[in-house]
């Protein structure tokens, strides 16, 4: 074991860590914004919408994220340049980068998995609570905002912690489309110093720390949610 390379590459690892956290934060946030309506329409939506949401979840959950990522980056990315006028448009500088493609792919993946979780969560809220809210004369949207969504999120909070760890563990896939997040930096170290195990073990340790941080964060947040306990 030789660690002489670590001080030299430390700034790169810090940059990589920031990229990893950006990937994680953005895709979780955007993905959850999509997952809530996807879960909701499967419970109450009109049948075609419910069916479409169902098909979306099945498709995302039934294919490897790596293939989705490559489909978005290489597949869509190779179609864009052939669209007339796109290279002159303001979108082109964004479409040339790999990062937006990774965010797009990860967001869809989070939306697919969490849409399924949210479907169960919305269904699990006791009917009586929703009826009570309606009896108070709340607008359907108010019911959703005040009662249905908070109660649903509260019930699946532990599940969401696990899902967030899974998303964290899928971020290294972004390295395969030239994004240098933490794992990507370790591949640079491997290529430049010919050390195989140390960089891998080092990022492995970093991911364990990040996983631990997520678990602790969610446990702290969970304790802050007031909840009536039976018995």
């Amino acid at each position, binding site marked *: 074991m030789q660690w002489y390379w670590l001080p030299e590459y430390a700034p790169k690892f810090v940059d990589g860590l920031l990229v990893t956290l950006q990937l994680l934060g953005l895709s979780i946030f955007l993905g959850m914004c999509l997952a809530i309506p996807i879960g909701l329409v499967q419970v109450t939506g009109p049948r075609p919408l419910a069916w479409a949401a169902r098909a979306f979840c099945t*498709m995302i959950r039934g294919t490897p994220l790596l293939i989705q990522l490559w489909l978005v980056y290489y*597949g869509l990315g190779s179609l864009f340049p052939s669209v007339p006028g796109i290279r002159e448009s303001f979108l082109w500088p964004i479409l040339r980068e790999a990062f937006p493609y990774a965010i797009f792919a990860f967001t869809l993946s989070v939306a697919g998995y969490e849409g399924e979780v949210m479907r169960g969560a919305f269904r699990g809220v006791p009917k009586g609570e929703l009826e009570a809210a309606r009896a108070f004369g709340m607008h359907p949207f108010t019911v959703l905002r005040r009662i249905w969504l908070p109660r649903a999120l509260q019930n699946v909070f532990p599940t969401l912690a696990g899902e967030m760890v899974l998303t964290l563990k899928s971020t290294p896939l972004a390295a395969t489309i030239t994004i240098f997040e933490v794992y990507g930096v370790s591949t640079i170290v491997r290529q430049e110093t010919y050390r195989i195990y140390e960089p891998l073990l080092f990022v492995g340790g970093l991911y364990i720390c990040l996983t631990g941080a997520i678990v602790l964060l969610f446990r702290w947040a969970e304790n802050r949610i007031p909840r009536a306990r039976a018995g």
Partner: protein
Amino acid sequence: MNAFMASIPWELLSLSPPGWGGNLLRGLAKTFQIALGAYILGLMIGLAGALGKIYGGPILRWGLETYTTLIRAVPELVLILLLYYAGTDLLNQTLEALGYERVDISGLAAGIYVLGFVQGAYATEVLRGAILAVPAGQVEAAAAFGMSWVQRHRRIVVPAMIPFALPGLANLWLIVTKDTALLAVVGFSELALETRQAAGATKSYFLFYVIAAALYLSLTLVSNVVFRWIERRYRRGQPELG
């Protein structure tokens, strides 16, 4: 729509060269083989791990706890690279120490070993929960009949835990079929890598990745049907839930 369908170079998918369809199907078969092998290896590790976690002494339990925690906290991609390099290195060093020639491990064997080792950690937790869910009275009744520890587990515990374990095990199977795609990064020619080569050679990236996604999806959907059937069979003796 018709013009769009006609503009897709379908001939690239024909089964014999210059088409790449045959390569994709061979890749799918490889993916299935690796997934099945890794799943079976994972189940064996998982069963041993679960029994060790429940009945083992403090040192064994601590070791297994470390194994399941570490494996589940580190990304699969990092694990695959670590296990792949470490595994082949270790094997070759052992062979050299014993005075044999170095060997190249086949992609299939290495893929099965790496993914199986990762699956084992998840399977340990699934099976541990399932074993603990078997009513204690049934095991005590078996002991009262004078069955030995091995007989109790072979005849009572393992068959009785299967219904509890099946949903988790079905999930693990779906995960392992998708995780095989990660082996493309280490250079095994399973479906993901075959697709990448086909897409790179023909420049029809979109077409080939969509086809690959469809192949993975069909594997998942067929697996779902099979697992639903198995679950119905194993739940025969259980009262309906809900």
